[in-house]
């Protein structure tokens, strides 16, 4: 099933790309006014994580983010977060807590109309997390009714674990008030290194979310509000 996600994301890219290009052609001909581009540091928080912390039992998380516009279309981006998550499977209950950082860039593929500051961003991140995991209880798998198994409560703590992954982020940013942005993003991650606990596995990795036994991919989303601290403005002559 995980193989579908990258394909879909690729399709989204293609659609975004072509639509934007189509829009661009129309505008250039009509536009003769100079556009002002704001450059600065945008900082924000993920709203989805505090909401989940309130609503979802066994979860707490918080993430702050920042991006800095480097060129017209490129932004350097950073996310820092902490997460605690109880993960329960029919045969296993575990708890993961730790912090993570994601560092990379966003590319704005959206050509704005004059004076607008919206964005459809394609981003890449390098993500890493350091975390602890606790195996709270487990059961021996058996399909034999002669010796029913019992849940074994023998908590074991695994500390000093870490994981590294690459992440593709597709996001939409809308300026709702002057310099205030709401953004929605989806993330596709691929884990490339992790320290596995002895005789157990990382069922959940802060920042990466749940792992899969049969693949290195992970998914995630974010819904955030951010504020742009303008540092300077650039006036740009329209391209002809």
């Amino acid at each position: 099933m995980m193989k579908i996600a990258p394909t879909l994301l690729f399709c989204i890219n293609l659609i975004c790309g072509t639509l934007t290009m189509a829009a661009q052609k129309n505008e250039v001909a009509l536009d003769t006014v100079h556009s002002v581009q704001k450059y600065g540091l945008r900082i924000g928080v993920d709203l989805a994580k505090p909401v989940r912390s309130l609503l979802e039992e066994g979860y707490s998380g918080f993430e702050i983010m920042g991006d800095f516009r480097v060129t017209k279309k490129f932004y350097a981006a950073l996310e820092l977060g902490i997460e605690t998550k109880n993960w329960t499977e029919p045969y296993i209950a575990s708890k993961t807590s730790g912090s993570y950082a994601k560092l990379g860039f966003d590319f704005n593929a959206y050509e704005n109309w004059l004076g607008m500051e919206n964005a459809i961003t394609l981003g890449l991140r390098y993500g890493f997390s350091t975390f602890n995991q606790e195996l709270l209880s487990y059961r021996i798998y058996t399909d034999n009714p002669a010796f029913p198994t019992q849940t074994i409560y023998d908590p074991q703590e695994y500390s000093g674990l870490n994981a590294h992954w690459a992440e593709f982020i597709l996001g939409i940013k809308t300026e709702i008030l002057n310099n205030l942005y709401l953004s929605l993003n989806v993330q596709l991650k691929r884990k490339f290194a992790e320290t596995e606990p002895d005789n157990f596995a990382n069922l959940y990795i802060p920042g990466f979310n749940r792992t899969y036994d049969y693949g290195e991919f992970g998914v995630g989303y974010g819904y955030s509000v951010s504020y742009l601290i303008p540092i300077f403005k650039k006036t740009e002559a329209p391209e002809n």
Partner: protein
Amino acid sequence: MIKKIIVLLFIIFAFKGCTKDDICPPETATTAKLVISFNDFSNPANAKNVNLLSVHTDYENSVKVISFENTNEIAVPLSTTSDTTKYKFIRSTVRTNDTLTNIDRVMFVYRRQNDYVSRACGFNTEYFNVEENLVDEGTENWIKQVTVIRDTVNDENSPHVTILH
């Protein structure tokens, strides 16, 4: 355009729900059973079938584990919660006007270790230093000898125990 993207995002999240991590695949190597072969007492290298065999656990609430006709190899589970497993091996002999049953008791003693298997399968148990203990009934025993061939039970590829009869 933004609407289209949001619809696509919803599709992605709809698909992310079910994976094969959710159920333990039957072919997974979970807790292995103890494989027992039945050989001829007078010629221990040769397999010898038991005509009617049933195996029950030997506890207060005895449970029938398996029953076979004409078999020389069976696999029985070992307890994952105790360091001993007690079994009754019941051989039935059908004669013209009645059926003779002969019950022999064997206890297996071992060390256990629980190992992580996977997200859906949880843990399994490996057994080490398996030893047998046949309850001696003198000439009443239909089982003459129990021999442990492989004292680690973590696969079912070949017999762990040979019963001579």
